[in-house]
């Protein structure tokens, strides 16, 4: 860890040192951690079977073994394609994904008729579908690692991705409700029995664009003109892009009826803006704009209804879910009761009643799991999420180029923000919004998008920890030198 931090602090002077000190790829650490995660996943599966079926079936290990094969394959891919990638990321994500699949399978077991439980196929039900999505997602992550041999190479497609991101965000908003609306939020594209959440992918595309755009504009945006209360505020004409994204977020809020996604995009942008410009004023402007907008939407929803009505209702439920415990507040109430019933230690894997919560496999999976693993288990999951976020930020600190810093920092924070939005939502910390819980919730779009996010973080962390080409000699960087418009790390002025 410190090895990664040192060159980041003063990359210009530590090139030679880093060649020696960063030679350790830490792949064996990754392997041991991954095996540990798989043991936990296998133990979880066995406990679920013991509790739900009263016996551990002889092939309880099969789902874990298949997952193990997939994750180990990715591990091997990383060994070859990103040998210096952060060793904690893959095991942490594998643990979450494994628990998610295990919990979805546990739901399938509970739903199945008592006589059919023992013979429930691995690829049956939600658990099986999630299983298949995991295989596909990990495969895609490996493909992305193979194609993107240097994270800077994607900056070439920044404008294309930005446009694609906006289009992806807007598709559900403009589609008729029956193709896009599920439970009041228009976030999907539904064709036949198949639905994808384009917003999950848009998140990645937009972030690449933000990172690229801000690297180019950071000098302009950093210029201060007004100083109020010790804080530098930017020139009025530089507010343009922020306002544009703010408008985009509000449009999402209004047309897709989803505060969470809107908060996610806006938070993502403001944070990358802050990282790029180092101006606290941007954070303040962003927060004021967002909360002002949200409050305005709440008030408008109460007064004129219309497109703001859904948000107003959600806010009302958040303020007092027990006011209408059987109708509007039902899901949130049941989620809270599940968490409360779990208490400190939980009912044990398989020991709870997660099906009391409607649609527990989606937004409320954290509450369903929480009933069974308790506060201690959930705290452990939160720490694993936090670990992923902080390792992502560590990669951002260590990587030498601005684009990489913004990309990794933005992605890591976005992942954390998404966890905050959904877990905060189901635990009544903030109004509930339709977000998926990364790596846990049933749903291919979310799983795939987040695995791609992890692939990018792996790539950036590999770039950060890889010995400099000149020093090591053996690891010539594929994909050519940095894109011309990016100012490389050596010319970076790192503020204390």
């Amino acid at each position, binding site marked *: 860890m410190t090895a990664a931090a040192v060159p980041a602090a003063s990359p210009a002077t530590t090139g030679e040192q880093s060649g020696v000190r960063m030679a350790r790829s830490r792949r064996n650490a990754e392997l041991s951690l991954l095996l540990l995660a798989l043991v936990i996943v296998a133990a979880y599966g066995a406990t679920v079977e013991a509790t739900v079926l009263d016996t551990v079936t002889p092939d309880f290990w099969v789902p874990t073994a298949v997952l193990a094969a997939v994750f180990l394959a990715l591990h091997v891919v990383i060994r070859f394609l990103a040998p210096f990638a952060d060793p904690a990321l893959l095991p942490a994500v594998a643990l979450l994904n494994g628990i998610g699949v295990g919990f979805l399978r546990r739901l399938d077991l509970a739903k199945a008729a008592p006589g059919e439980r023992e013979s429930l196929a691995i690829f049956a039900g939600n658990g099986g579908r999630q299983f298949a999505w995991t295989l596909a997602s990990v495969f895609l992550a490996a493909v992305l690692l193979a194609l993107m041999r240097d994270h800077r190479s994607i900056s070439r497609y920044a404008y294309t991705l930005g446009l694609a991101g906006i289009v992806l965000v807007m598709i559900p908003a403009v589609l008729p409700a029956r193709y896009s609306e599920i439970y009041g939020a228009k976030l999907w594209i539904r064709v036949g029995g198949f639905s994808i959440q384009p917003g999950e992918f848009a998140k990645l595309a937009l972030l690449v664009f933000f990172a690229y755009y801000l690297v180019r504009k950071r000098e302009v945006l950093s210029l201060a003109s007004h100083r109020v209360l010790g804080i530098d505020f930017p020139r009025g004409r530089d507010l343009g892009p922020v306002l544009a994204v703010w408008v985009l977020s509000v449009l999402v809020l209004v047309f897709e009826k989803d505060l969470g996604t809107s908060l996610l995009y806006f938070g993502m942008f403001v944070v990358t803006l802050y990282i790029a410009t180092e101006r606290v004023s941007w954070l303040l402007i962003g927060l004021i704009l967002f909360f002002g907008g949200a409050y305005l939407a709440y008030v408008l929803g109460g007064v004129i209804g219309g497109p703001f009505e859904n948000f107003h209702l959600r806010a009302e439920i958040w303020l007092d879910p027990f006011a209408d415990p059987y109708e509007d507040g039902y899901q949130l*109430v049941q989620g809270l009761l599940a968490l409360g019933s779990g208490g400190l230690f939980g009912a044990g894997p398989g020991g*709870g009643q997660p099906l009391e919560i409607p649609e527990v496999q989606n937004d409320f999976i954290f509450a369903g799991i929480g009933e069974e693993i308790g506060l201690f288990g959930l705290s452990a999951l939160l720490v694993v999420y936090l670990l992923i976020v902080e390792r992502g930020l560590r990669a951002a600190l260590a990587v030498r180029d601005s684009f990489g810093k913004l990309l990794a920092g933005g992605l890591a924070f976005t992942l954390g923000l998404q966890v905050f939005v959904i877990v*905060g939502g189901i635990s009544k910390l903030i109004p509930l919004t339709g977000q998926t819980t990364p790596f846990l919730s049933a749903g291919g779009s979310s799983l795939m998008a987040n695995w791609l996010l992890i692939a990018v973080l792996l790539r950036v962390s590999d770039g950060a920890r890889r010995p400099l080409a000149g020093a090591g000699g053996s690891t010539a960087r594929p994909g050519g030198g940095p894109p011309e418009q990016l100012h490389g790390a050596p010319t970076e002025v790192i503020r204390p």
Partner: protein
Amino acid sequence: MNAPLRRVGVVAMVLFGLLFANLNWIQAYKADEYRGSDYNGRVQVAEYERKRGNIEAGGTALATSKETGGKLRFLRTYPGGEKYAHVLGYKPVTLGDTGIERVENDFLAGTSDALIGNRIKDMFTGDETGGGNVLLTLSKRAQDAAYNGLADNKVGAKKGAAIAIDPRTGAVQALVSMPSFNPNPLVSHDSNEATAAYNKLDNAPDGPLKNRALSEVLPPGSTFKIVVAAAALENGVGKNTEIPAGSSWTPPTSGTPIRNAAPSICPEEQVTLLDAVTESCNTGFAQLGVKLGADKVKEKARQFGFEQDDLTVGQLGEGGLPTAASRTGTIEAPDGTTDPAALAQSSIGQRDVRMTPLQGALIAGSVANGGSQMRPYLVRQLLAPDRTTSYYTAKPRELRQPVSGPVASDLRDMMVSVVENGSGRNAKIDGYRVGGKTGTAQSGPQTPDHGWFIGFAFDKNGNPVSAVCVMLEEAGAGGSGEAARIAGKIMQAAIADPGGR
């Protein structure tokens, strides 16, 4: 750009810290509230995950649980059907629970604090923790006699109650309320079926869900004379003291004369207290009550247990089936002074005097037990799920001492005289010393009279073995005689039951 990145890292930690703090709030601080919330269906499913313990009496399971294979794993069944319904109550899925099922719920469900050792042990041995078993004091034979006696009563009464208590301990030997109900449909896992069954019972005109033995209050009629006689005995009147009687007596302030049930009863100017009780002389007791004064009558009734509204019948500690308070009512004129007319009527158990069958049995029981009234109880023992350990064994406890030993002895002789020579002959049991007092209470201008009998039986060694109260609501003519007959059958069954209960 590293400084803001580090700050973003701190922001992420703060956000997760908020999540963590909030989860602590929900899963630790609010956990108990949420776990037991009315909206929480888990409480119920979890309750049915564990095999609920039995409720038993005399070695027979009266309430038991059998496995269903459904979402709710165990179905509660009551093999005794209607016979034990008012004692056991019922434990439905969505409706409220009642009876012993309610008051001993924690122990039966296995969630009681007392059973924590068992739960921990089973956690290690892997056994399934069941609920504990509740053993009742009921005597199967006495309960059969009470249930059949009421159901087949010869005066055609539709409503009534019978309760038998062991005078020495307070253990309830029989408790029946008529009409009864079948608790099995109420505990159906099909909530529509259960609700329909409940609504039907709840709307039935005779109120089958009501436990008349503990909570129906009716004018006790002449059975109340035992209370007045007790007050008289303590105020200088002996059992052979002559008291004024007559075929009719009009209280000083009222034009309505008090008469006797038949012209043959105490037409003499004076009768002994013994004869007044034996014959159930209304005019004698009306004058006796007025002479004693309202305060003494009320105080004696209170000492027998009237006015107590917090008595429960279950374990001998907290909790148990609730009972209604018996009342002597107002005996005052509007100006606050004693109204002799009201007092005269109250002294023969009319006017505003109201008594529960339980209170009647307690009066008879305290007379039989030498003046000591034992606290009634239904729960004899709480047994661990594996039946090895006992968590509670009833230790009989005196509730109060309404009368002294000599007064109790006089009252006993008078009540025995009632059964041997007077209105309570139907209660006679060959070879046993039985005492009692009948009561016929006017229920209203248009409705038939209520028939009462309170009584007791002594075994051959001179020990009181059973004290009974039978009440037949709106039974009409012959009601108290029929009540006495049923009471005799119940006491006979209680005597015959091996081991008493």
